[in-house]
């Protein structure tokens, strides 16, 4: 009898705990059956893919496919940039397109701000000591950026005289390879200073996941020996999509296709050929004005 009681209690309590979960899952599973069936009956695979992956937004599958369908070389796909981090849209294209070709650049759902210089992120201090002229700052870009164009430094208090600023950008905490080194001698004393990087750091941040960059800063006062205040904050400026050297040949809502200038010149000077046909097809490709996004 004792044994039976033990078994009954030991079986019923777990059953009571798990039953709501099973019912919930069964309802959610069952609720999907008819809509899925209806979707399969009323749409084809391509329509479902465009709906799921977006036409001119999201992954921009629809727009990218329309453009690549016109490309005369069946092995390449354009370098594709998105507002967010979706660099794999090309994997969904039919056929064997496995070479990214930077002669063509496709932008999906891109803002004006994405092609201009702007502040990317505020760095956080990784090492900073009171009284020390040296500090280390870490920052993550999250998304892909073509260029790092500047560093904005804000001192805790305005310096009393000109300061010399040295900066070095390291790839990461683990990989100390130097991506850039800069020195700005005798900078005018202001609380907030923007340092333009000339030349900018090109091919700056791609597919880094969440790996932080490290920025090392070293300050020095001018020979007069004025005290140098600590750095209070550091901002990083950059350009997400650098259209320098490209000509936009097609736009549709906030998506565009651009061609590298030297390649465009080459096609135009040749006068005819498959790539000229491509330009004609692209020209004829109607803009949807975002209607497909609805």
């Amino acid at each position, binding site marked *: 009898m004792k*044994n*039976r009681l*033990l*078994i*009954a*209690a*030991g*079986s019923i*309590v*777990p059953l009571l*705990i*798990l039953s709501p*979960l*099973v019912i919930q*899952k*069964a309802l959610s*599973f*069952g609720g*999907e*059956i008819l*809509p*899925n*069936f209806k*979707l*399969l009956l009323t749409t*084809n*695979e391509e329509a*479902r*893919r465009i709906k*799921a*992956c977006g036409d001119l937004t*999201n*992954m921009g599958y629809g727009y990218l496919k329309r453009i690549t369908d016109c490309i005369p070389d069946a092995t390449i796909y354009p370098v594709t940039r998105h507002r*967010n*981090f*979706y*660099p*794999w849209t090309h*994997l*969904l294209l*039919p*056929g*064997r397109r*496995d070479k990214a070709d930077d002669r063509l650049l496709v932008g999906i759902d891109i803002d004006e701000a994405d092609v201009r210089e702007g502040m990317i992120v505020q760095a956080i201090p990784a090492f900073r000591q009171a009284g020390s002229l040296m500090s280390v700052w870490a920052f*993550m870009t999250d998304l892909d950026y073509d260029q790092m164009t500047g560093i904005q430094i804000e001192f805790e208090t305005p310096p009393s005289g000109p300061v010399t600023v040295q900066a070095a950008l390291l790839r990461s905490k*683990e990989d100390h390879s130097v991506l850039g080194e800069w020195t700005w001698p005798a900078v005018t004393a202001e609380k907030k200073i923007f340092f333009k990087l000339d030349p900018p750091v090109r091919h700056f941040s791609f*597919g880094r*996941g*969440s*790996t*932080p960059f490290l920025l090392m800063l070293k300050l020095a006062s001018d020979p007069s020996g004025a005290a140098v205040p600590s750095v209070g904050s550091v901002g990083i400026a950059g350009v997400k999509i650098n259209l320098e050297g490209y000509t936009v040949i097609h736009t549709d809502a906030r998506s565009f296709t651009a061609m590298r200038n030297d390649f465009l010149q080459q096609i135009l000077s040749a006068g005819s050929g498959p790539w000229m046909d491509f330009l004609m097809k692209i020209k004829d490709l109607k803009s949807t004005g975002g209607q497909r996004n609805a």
Partner: protein
Amino acid sequence: MPEWLRLCLACIPLFVIPGIVGKAFWGCEVYWASRWWFGMILSGLLLIFGHGANLHGGVVTILFSVFFIFCAVKSFQRCKAAQPEISKDSSKRFEPGKIVAGILFFLLFCSYLDVLAHPLTAEHWDALSSWWNKVRALYFWPPFAETPCAGWDFMNYPYLGPMLELLIIRCTGGLSESFGRLLFPTVYFMWMMTFNLLFPGKIRWRTFWLIPFIAILFYDRRAFTSGYQDGFVGLICGMAAVHFVRFFLKENRLQGIDGRWDTDLFLGVFFAGAASFVKSEGTFLGVILAAAAAGVFLFSEPAGKIPRKILILLPYIIFFGILVCIWPGFLLLNHVNILRMQNAFVMSDLLGFYRNLDRWEMIRLFVAHSILKNWPVLSACLMLSLVSALAVPKLRRVLAFLWLAGIGHGIFVTFLYFVTRLNLQWHLVNSFGRLMFQHFFVYSCILYTTGHCLLDAWDRKGLSVSTERERSI
């Protein structure tokens, strides 16, 4: 080609090929779903061997076709030799086992609808960039060393899943990721079907609902429809676990084992070893599982001299070692660095974990979240285990094995975050739950074995898995 026709064609690689290959190697002594699993995995492994040896795609197609024809002939001979009598008694034809199979096949069909209706999106970014990328490349059969590795340079990631997806895609006529992903719900429901072999004999009405109940409880849409391989790793190790559990449930498991291979041990070791072809983490889970089984075998009753037991295990250990070494062997053959596991780790990092003990502060939050999130299942398993250990003593070694494997894998996954090179928080957010899910099969097995045995004990029919009952499957 219309989609319904492609779905019908998908049944060839999904059911016909594995079924026939499995039947060619195993007779009625192995449950049909187990044979199917064996056929599926063996087909994938053979294709990987062909690719790893850099054979031309056409040659591999011819060799695989010849192999399939051989299997078809062999399985036909087996079928002819053991033609079952079809019962005219309708009560026998509609036995609970068939109803279980019917329910599971219905759920499988519904999950097919789900897979086909929902293409991969950016939400499944890893499934797209790593796994679909591999499937797509394998479709064009590049040289082994040129298999793509997405944005990450871990070339050494194995690809049993993508190879099987490729087999399906090739048979359905076009490069469509949706059809490839039909593999994952199929392996899930076929694994659930193998629970029937744990307590062979007629499945009684009192317990038949357990399998559909557990199948729905553990069905995870992300894990079994999106193309992520963590569910597949869990399932292949789940197959190993089912066979190890069956071995531990046998009362006469040590009788006559010296001179011959035990089918359940062999299949358990085969599936545990084959996990190393699914994901790098699969190797570790396979090792943990095999080690847990070996540990319980060595130190549990029936008492025997440990050296003798080691001698019994030796051929299995060698077989397991060979299976685990094949993939690294292919990598070495193709000049790939086997010590670089992926971007997050290299082998030498594993020894430096003690330098990062301060990470526990953050890791423990995720461990706690994982436990709390799965608390209903965990608490049910704990409760059932305790009651079963008291009421059904013969189940103790099964429970010891399953809990050892589950806890061992939980510790291993937690350990990984002490050595990751990636941003810790990002890595935890993106992978901790997925990796922990890999040992979900432990809980499924615990729920089924304990649930079944307790209901059995309630009936006072005892637990023994007699040889007579075994013969009846």
